[in-house]
């Protein structure tokens, strides 16, 4: 499925709808270059879980854990890692089988060799000729295949 967004608000609305559809325990890989909307998406997703805290990308601390409803959110940023082993070395495997939570991983392509087989992929890119336009390609969510 391909979603076209024309603004940050639209990306957040898409994230909200997406959050309502995916089952607890999902791992979602967010792939795309800088400034394509990965963090904006995560912010919308968090709002949908009733998370009031500010959501920024945890580039330095790697993982942010948020308490939400009906489940929690693990927000991971693999930007400064080199590979999947780096992620496992910080005890990352608990986030790949999230209990009572959903895991969103920015820059997930860096650690792709350790992502579980049922990972849902969202690929973000910019749209030529429309500075605010973003294309989000959804893969791996059964209902929409």
């Amino acid at each position, binding site marked *: 499925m391909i979603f076209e967004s024309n603004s940050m608000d639209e990306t957040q609305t898409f994230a909200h709808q997406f959050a309502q559809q995916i089952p607890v325990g999902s791992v979602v890989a967010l792939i795309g270059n800088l400034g394509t909307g990965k963090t904006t998406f995560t912010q919308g997703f968090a709002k949908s879980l009733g998370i009031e805290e500010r959501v920024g990308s945890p580039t330095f601390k790697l993982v942010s854990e948020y308490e939400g409803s009906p489940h929690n959110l693990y927000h991971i940023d693999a930007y400064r890692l080199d590979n999947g082993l*780096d992620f496992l070395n910080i005890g990352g495997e608990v986030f790949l089988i999230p209990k009572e939570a959903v895991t969103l991983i920015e820059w997930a392509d860096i650690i792709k060799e350790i992502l579980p087989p049922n990972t849902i992929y969202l690929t973000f890119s910019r749209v030529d000729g429309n500075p605010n336009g973003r294309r989000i390609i959804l893969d791996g969510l059964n209902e929409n295949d």
Partner: protein
Amino acid sequence: MIVLGIESSCDETAAAICRNGKILSSVVSSQLIHSKFGGVIPEIASREHEKLLNQLVHESLEESGIKKDEIDAIAVTVGPGLAGTLLTGISFAKGLALGLDIPVLPVNHLEAHIFANFLADPSLEYPFVCLLVSGGHTQLWLIEKMNHYTLLGETRDDAAGEAFDKGARIFGLSYPGGPLIEEEAKGGNPKAHHFPRGLMGKESLEFSFSGLKTSLLYFMDNFQESDSVKKRDIIASYQKAIIDTLVEKMKRAIQKTNVKTCVIAGGVAANKSLRETLESSLPTIRILFPDLSYCTDNAAMISYLGELKANAGESWSIDFGVKPNLKLA
């Protein structure tokens, strides 16, 4: 009093010994690895923490000339940080404390960063404003005395250090981006292009850097070097946008709180252009820039704050757990 400090909140492991407010030794995993593996620094992390802790504690004891049974208390980071790596440090600290029959004290990593400023400059006096500015944080604090901290403002999105890192990526430089951008910006014209400052309104003490990053991304789409505008001019302009924002917020914080001293802590404090701009913008304010060794993650600040807390009569029991999302106030 002799306190052993243990830090493992992210991907660095560290141990230190503090005696009566003086740091006798402070070892950080990357330094150790550096010397033992001849310059190669592998990724350090929780399983690595486990292997390293024992070694680091021994190293810190050896360096300080203190014997294990002379330690009066152990201070350990409980948060904020990664649950897995924090747990490794806490478990180790508790085990050692039980074995030595001494108390173990939970320490807040952010609070320790603030108190590291006293280690760096003993003449520092309350009250002061602290700008904590690193890859992970951009926060302005009013520090009135121990346990009296007010958050004046923080970033709504990216940290300032992150704005440097991600800007560096857009410019084709590597990680971490701060020092590389500073180097490339030398000799560039910081007025070549005006990037937006995320000032968030006239009085706000909040920060925002994600708009700046996006603006750079769009600008670089169509940028081509010419005789009049070089890439280094754009890098200098980008750096100036980050620095101007930090300086403006610091000015507002000083105005609002009316304090006479401010401290810049965190990795971004190493930026010389930030130092110069602050000093020329706030001529009547005493501005302290602690040595970088106190700004990065270390256990010296953990042992130091642990001793202060113990001396202040704070009591504790051993049944504390990890607090990955711990706040300062």
